[in-house]
């Protein structure tokens, strides 16, 4: 699914990355715990979070996450957006809560990373 479609489903507004909206996203992760995001995320993931600090962008950078959605209408500071812009990360904001945001995307066919059980030792290896 393209990021433009995600924007339509979530009635989301783009905060930065207008030029990269035609990128594909195949899975999603909703969490305010960056520790969990670091442990479970795969490629082409959209990250849905209510946390708006710089560490969200850093975490996305490490994992090659190209799209972040801030829920509940949250808008991060300009320093956070500037960092995202430099890294080519699309940042969106939606008025929906994290729960509803995840629900809407799930309903539209985007699934979570199904093999992300903590015991799976090979998750991050892309196996």
């Amino acid at each position, binding site marked *: 699914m393209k990021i433009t479609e995600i924007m339509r489903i979530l009635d989301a507004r783009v905060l930065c990355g207008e030029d990269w909206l035609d990128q594909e996203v195949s899975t999603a992760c909703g969490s*305010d*715990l*960056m*520790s*969990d995001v*670091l*442990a479970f995320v795969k*490629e082409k993931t959209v990250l849905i979070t209510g*946390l708006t*600090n*710089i*560490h*969200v962008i*850093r*975490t996305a*950078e*490490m*994992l*090659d996450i190209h799209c972040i959605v801030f829920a509940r209408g949250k808008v991060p500071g300009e320093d956070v957006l500037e960092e995202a812009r430099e890294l080519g990360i699309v940042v969106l904001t939606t008025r929906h809560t994290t729960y509803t945001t995840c629900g809407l995307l799930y309903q539209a066919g985007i699934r979570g990373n199904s093999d992300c059980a*903590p015991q799976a*030792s090979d*998750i*991050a*290896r*892309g196996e």
Partner: protein
Amino acid sequence: MQEFSLVDVYPVKALDYATAGDASATIKRKLKQLGVDSTILRRIAVASYEVELNLIIHSAGGTLTLKMNPTEIQLISSDVGPGIPDIQKALQEGYSTASEEARNLGFGAGMGLPNMKRNADEFSIQSEMGKGTLIQMRFHLS
């Protein structure tokens, strides 16, 4: 063992949350420029970020060292204390002694060490109370 063509040492300050991830971002960008495969690079980046965060959250300060030769990449974290009282406990998923401050930033879920272990091809940790902790991670390139 082949000699390392690249050896970089990054100092990491205790409790310096503002710059958390700077060393890992530099490491990732450098290795990307050197043409490291993107799947391996992501594993290195995650492990590096986790260990850098650990130095900031838990240690009294230390260094993160990146070494590379044609067959492998090593990440070595060395700090000056306080040491880990129970390594087996620290290696359990969900076990964390992180501060409220670290948790408020989205960390301290007790996934750090297990996540490093999962991402590295070889992982070793040694710790001595009052002296410090040494973590070595190796990533095979071929």
